[in-house]
C-alpha cells in the first residue's frame, strides 16, 4: 500500500472525527441535521475507500447504505419531524459548549492512547482507523449525554453508530459487516419512526427528556 492510499483513508476517517466535533458544537437543529448528513457522507467515502483498498466489493453496499439512508433519507425525515413538532429553536444542553468541547478533545486523546499501543501488530492503516473510530464512538456518547432533546440524542446515537461501521469496515475481512449495517439501519429507522409515531411531542408536549422523567411514578 502506498503512503498516499493510507493518507486518503486517514483524511476521510479524520474528517469524521472533525465532523463529530462540529456536531457537538452545533446549537441549532437544522444545522445539526446538515452536519450529520456530512458525517454520513464522510462515512460513505471512508467505507468505499476501504472496499476499494481491501478488494471487498460487499463493503460498497455498506457505503451505499450510509450515503443514501443516513446521508439523505434520515436527515430529510428528521427535518420534517422537527418542523412538524416545532422544535427548531436552539438545543438545550446539560453542559455548556466550551467544557463539552474540552472533554471531547480529552476523549480523542484517550482513544488514541488506548488504541495505538493495543493494535501494535496491525498495520498503520488499521490502527489509526480504529483510533479514529473509537474517537467517533466516544464523541457520540458525549453528545448523547450532554443533550436533553430527543432528536439530538438520536443524532448522537447515529454518529456513534457511524463510528462502529467505520471500525467494522476497517477490520480486515470481517464478515457480516453489511448485515450489521443493515441491522443498524433498521434500528435507526425504528428510533426515528418511534419519535414520530410514539407521538412523544403530542403525548408529553415536549421532546425534552427531562419532562419524560416526571411522568414516572418515582419522582
Amino acid at each position, binding site marked *: 500500500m502506498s503512503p498516499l492510499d493510507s493518507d486518503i483513508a486517514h483524511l476521510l476517517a479524520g474528517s469524521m472525527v472533525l465532523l463529530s466535533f462540529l456536531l457537538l458544537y452545533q446549537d441549532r437543529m437544522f444545522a445539526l441535521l446538515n452536519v450529520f448528513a456530512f458525517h454520513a457522507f464522510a462515512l460513505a467515502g471512508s467505507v468505499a475507500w476501504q472496499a476499494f483498498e481491501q478488494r471487498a466489493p460487499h463493503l460498497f453496499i455498506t457505503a451505499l447504505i450510509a450515503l443514501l439512508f443516513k446521508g439523505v433519507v434520515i436527515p430529510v425525515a428528521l427535518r420534517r419531524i422537527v418542523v412538524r413538532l416545532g422544535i427548531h429553536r436552539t438545543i438545550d444542553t446539560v453542559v455548556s459548549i466550551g467544557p463539552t468541547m474540552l472533554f471531547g478533545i480529552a476523549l480523542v486523546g484517550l482513544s488514541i492512547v488506548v488504541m495505538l499501543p493495543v493494535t501494535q501488530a496491525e498495520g498503520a492503516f488499521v490502527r489509526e482507523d480504529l483510533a479514529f473510530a473509537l474517537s467517533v464512538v466516544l464523541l457520540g456518547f458525549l453528545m448523547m449525554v450532554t443533550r436533553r432533546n430527543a432528536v439530538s440524542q438520536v443524532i448522537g446515537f447515529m454518529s456513534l453508530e457511524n463510528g462502529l461501521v467505520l471500525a467494522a469496515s476497517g477490520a480486515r475481512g470481517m464478515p457480516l459487516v453489511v448485515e450489521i449495517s443493515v441491522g443498524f439501519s433498521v434500528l435507526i429507522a425504528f428510533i426515528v419512526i418511534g419519535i414520530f409515531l*410514539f407521538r412523544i411531542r403530542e403525548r408529553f408536549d415536549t421532546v425534552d427528556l427531562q419532562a419524560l422523567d416526571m411522568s*414516572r411514578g418515582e419522582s
Partner: protein
Amino acid sequence: MGQLALIGLLCTPALGAVLLAAIPRYRLAAALNMTLCALTLSCAAALYRHRPQPSLYLLVDDLNTVFLFVGALVGFSTSVFSAGYIAHELQTRRLKARDLRFYHAMYQLLMFAMNLALVSNNIGLMWVAIELATLTTVMMVGIYRTNAALEAAWKYFILGSVGIALALFGTILVYLAAQEHLGQGMVAMAWDRLTVSSASFDPSLLNLSFVFLLLGYGTKVGLVPVHAWLPDAHAEGPTPISAVLSGLLLNVALFALLRFKLIIAGNPHVLAPGPMMVTMGFTSLLFAGFMLYRRRDIKRMFAYSSIEHMGIITLAFGLGGPIASFAGLLHMTMHSLTKSAIFFGVGYISQLEGTQRTADIRGLTHSQPLLGWLLVLGVVAIAGLPPFGIFTSEFLLVTSTFARSPWLAILLVTGLLIAFSALALRLHGLAFGDTDRRHLLPAWRLAPMTLHLLLVAAAGVYLPAPVVAWFRHVASQLG
C-alpha cells in the same frame, strides 16, 4: 434427530410469528401461542439428548442446553399465564384486538431471537440476535401507549442501543485479535474456534474488548451502573413481558458474557475477567438491595430484585471455580423460575386490585387466599429462605466465597441480608392486614405459578442426580 430438533427450535417461533401476525381472533392466537411454545420446549428438551454436529453458524453444547431448556420452559408457562392475562386486558379495554395480534407475533419473534442468540456459534450472529430480541421487547414494553410506557420504551431503546453498540465494538476487537491467527472470514468469528485458540491471540486487544463487552452486554444483563432501563421496562410493560424479561432476556445477555469470558479466560496473558465481573455483580447486589426499600410500585420493586439476583449470578460466575459456577448456574435457573412465578402473581394482583402501588394493595391472603399465599411463598423463595432452591444456590455461593476470600463473603452476606429485609418488610403489608375485598380467580390460571414454585421447592429439597451431573459438567467447563 438433533438436527431436526435444532431446526424446530428456530423455525417454530419464526414461522409462528408470521402465523400469529395473521390471526385476528385472540383466543385462537393465545392457544396457538401456547402450542408453539410447547413445541419449542419439546425441541429444547430433545437437544439435551441429541446434539447436532456444530457448524460455523450454529452450535449446541452443554452450556447452551441449560439456557435453552430454562428459557423454553419459562417461555411456555408465560404463554399460559399470558392467555389469562390478556383476556382481562381486553375486557378492561387497555389493549385492543389489533394490539394483541402484534403482541403475539412479537412474543414468538422474541423466542426466536433468544433461541438464535443461544445456539449461534458466531459472535456476530449472536450480536444480531440479541439486537433483535431488544427490538421486540422494546415494542412490547411500549404497547400500552401511556406516557409512562412510552418513556420506559424510549429509555430502554436508547440505553439498550448504546449497550448493543458497545458490545459490537468489543466484538470487532475480538475478531481483530482472532483474524491474525485463524485467518479472515467466518472462521475468526466462530465461537468454538475462538475458545480453542485464544491463547495465541493478542492479549492487549482481548483486554480492551472485554471492557466493551462487559459494559455492552452488562447493560442488557441490568448490571449497575448501566441498569437504568430495567425497572421502567419491567414496571410499564405488560406483565408477561416483565416475566420474560427477567426470566429469559437477562439470562441470554449473561450467556453472551459467559461465552466471551471463556474466550478471554483461555489466554493466560490477559487480565482475569473474573474480578471485573465480581465487582459489577457485587455493586449491583448492594445497590439494588438498598433500592428495594423505597419502591412504591410492586413491579418496579421486583425489577430491582432482578437486578440484585443478576448481580449475584454475575458475581458467582466471576468468582469461578467448580462450586461457585455450579451455584451460579443453579441460581440462574432458580431465579428464572421464581421471578417469573412472582410476576405471574403480580400480574393478576395488579389486574384484580386495579393498581400497582404497593401502598394500595393490602391483605392479599384474605382477599384472594390462593394467590396471596402463592405470592408469600414466591417472595420467601426469592428472598433466599429454605426450603427453596435459591437458598441452596446462595448457600453454596457463600460457602465457596468464604473458603476463598472471607472479606468478600462478609460483604456478600450483608448484601443478601439487606435485600432480604427489604422484601420481608414489603411482603407484610402486601399479604397481611385487614381488607374487605374478595376476588375470584379461576384456579387454572394459577397453574403456571404453582408449577414454578413447586419446581423451585423440589430443587431446594432434592436436586436429582442427572441434573447435578449436568450442571457440574457445565460448571467444570466454565472454570
